[in-house]
């Protein structure tokens, strides 16, 4: 009998300040949808709603999908504030919620039951940066520049925590308010402090501004570390940033990409005239996970508790990279990051090589206390 399709609510940032993330995510999802519904399997259908990068709209959209469309699970947000807003709704109303791209630790704080996160948490990224720097140059001095966003605060908190343990010095630390437009003076301050590394934790266009101004005053690209890098960001930093470093969870230039991952990269590049990066990958992987949940237990398509339990017990691998997927009791994944060094930046593609990779347990550092 023709079963009804399984409906998944996908609330993401199609407009508003984070729409470059949301639309990238949707681009990744599109590729997965092409192979998502092979004949003979129960159909999975994504219902997309824009949240305008607005938490209130995100809650309303979640409510709309839950009640009007009767979705079995929610997914989609790529920004921590919208994700947290939906998180509250999902936990209160017992709707399974699979977060593709949002790194704020509290999304999987102890006691979380219905929310699951694919992306490693941001405090962990900071931890990883400290590990990386300590390995490159013990006792190094790090200049930290970050925007006053929750995500950026979380990264910085992790970095500071681990840096102290590893005997690294953080100086200066510069916080920019949201909507900043200038970093000239701060670049000069960084130059004056002469650090071994500069960690640039910016968002959107401001990331480019900081990077440009650091390069302008003569900071060497090899000293600059970005905690995360998407294809568009790398393009934004441009050719003169060759040599600088960025963290990622999936990259076209990784050694570990699987055959399916390679095909995804090539197809995506052909269609979008740029490489996919971890955002596209995670949204691609999200649909794969949902498929596996529905296949593992047919009842998961009709019962939210079953869906939740099946997802929680899932042991799988990212089809694109072969990296294991497994959730802990709070819905967090075993975490990992790659550090890449940029080799060349072109119009469509860029070249970079992995220089460091590390994995850790979600609670190796006290993330949930570090970041409220």
């Amino acid at each position, binding site marked *: 009998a023709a079963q009804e399709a399984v409906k998944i609510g996908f609330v993401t940032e*199609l*407009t*508003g*300040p984070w*729409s*470059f993330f949301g*639309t*990238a995510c949707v681009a990744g999802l599109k590729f997965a949808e092409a192979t998502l519904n092979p004949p003979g399997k129960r159909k999975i259908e994504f219902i997309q709603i824009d949240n*305008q990068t607005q938490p209130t709209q995100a809650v309303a959209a979640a409510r709309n999908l839950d009640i009007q469309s009767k979705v079995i699970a929610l997914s989609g947000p790529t920004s921590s504030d919208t994700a947290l807003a939906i998180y509250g709704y999902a936990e209160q109303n017992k709707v399974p919620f699979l977060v593709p791209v949002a790194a704020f630790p509290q999304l999987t704080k102890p006691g979380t039951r219905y929310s699951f996160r694919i992306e490693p948490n941001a405090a962990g990224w900071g931890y990883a940066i400290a590990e990386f720097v300590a390995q490159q140059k013990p006792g190094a001095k790090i200049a930290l520049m970050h925007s*006053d966003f929750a995500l950026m605060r979380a990264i910085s908190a992790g970095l500071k925590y681990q840096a102290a343990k590893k005997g690294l010095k953080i100086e200066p630390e*510069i*916080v*920019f*308010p*949201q*909507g*900043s*437009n*200038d970093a*000239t*003076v*701060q*670049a*000069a*301050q960084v*130059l*004056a*402090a002469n650090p071994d590394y500069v960690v640039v934790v910016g*968002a*959107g*266009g*401001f*990331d*480019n*501004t900081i990077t*440009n101004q650091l390069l*302008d*005053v*003569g900071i060497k690209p090899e000293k600059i570390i970005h905690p995360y890098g*998407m294809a*568009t*960001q790398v*393009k*934004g930093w*441009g050719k003169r940033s060759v040599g600088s470093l960025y963290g990622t969870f999936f990259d076209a230039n990784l050694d570990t990409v699987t055959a399916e991952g390679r095909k995804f990269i090539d197809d995506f590049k052909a269609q979008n005239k740029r490489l996919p990066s971890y955002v596209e990958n995670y949204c691609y992987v999200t649909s794969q996970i949902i498929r596996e949940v529905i296949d593992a237990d047919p009842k998961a398509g009709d019962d939210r508790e079953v869906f939740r339990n099946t997802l929680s017990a899932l042991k799988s691998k990212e089809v694109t990279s072969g990296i294991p997927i497994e959730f802990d009791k709070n819905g967090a994944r075993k975490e990992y990051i790659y550090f890449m060094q940029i080799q060349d930046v072109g119009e469509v593609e860029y070249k970079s090589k992995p220089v460091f990779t590390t994995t850790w347990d979600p609670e190796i550092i006290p993330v949930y206390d570090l970041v409220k």
Partner: protein
Amino acid sequence: MPTELVLISTLFTGLMLGVIFSLVAAGVTIIYGSIWMPNAANGQFFLLAALALWSAAVSWGLHPVVAALLVIGASVPASLLLEQVLIRRFYDVPNRNVSYFVLSLGITQILAGLFSVTYGVWSDQFQIPPLMAGITFLGPFPVSNSRLAALVTGVALLAALFALLRYHKYGRAIRAVFQNRDAASLRGVNVRAIYRLSFVLGNLVVAAGGVLYAFAYSFDLSVSWSMSITAFAIMIIGGPGSVVGAVAVGMVFGFTQAIVSAFASPTVATFSYLGAMLLILLMKPSGLFAR
């Protein structure tokens, strides 16, 4: 050497931001001080210019200077069209400042919506290719020639604007129309022409601010609203309608942001000038340079 470095970079930043703030606030205050329109959409116009420049220079591959001139030039027919279709309808309305405010909110909403669905997906990529290559050292502090050029152009524009309003009879006519419209008309001032001219000139200056900003910094869509608020704050403190006030206070804002963010923190800087505004208003409610 390090203190000198920080000092010079602070001065440079103060100037750079000050010039851009001044341009936008001057544009806003010209329009307010002639047709009595508090244009909440000025930030969107500012952003529109920056985005148009990006499209022209990056997507169409025009030379940055050509693209800049094209964008600033295009603001004239665009303003004229808007004036024809909407602005002039309210010239004779009694409390038109409120009508204009509502109208400009509507325009803000429309432009914000359009930008968000068109340019939104590239909002981490807005950078303009440099105007010129190379770096100049101001003492120990290196500045890219491109930003230096933007600064010099901005200063020149402000000087030209100042001269126009100060020494050309058009400047006096704007003030006359604002103070006593019927009387100005009886003295031979074509009031509607002055209105139209002011609207075009004001927007042109705002667009120039947007273009220079785009050369000096990369930007994203959120810059529009913060620029609107900043321009309003500058206008109120400087005394609505006063271009001298807009430039003076614009510079103060630029330097405040630079100095406070260098010696305290960038976050405090944002608070500081808005707080300063409240303090100044407590002492002098009509603004510093009220005409």
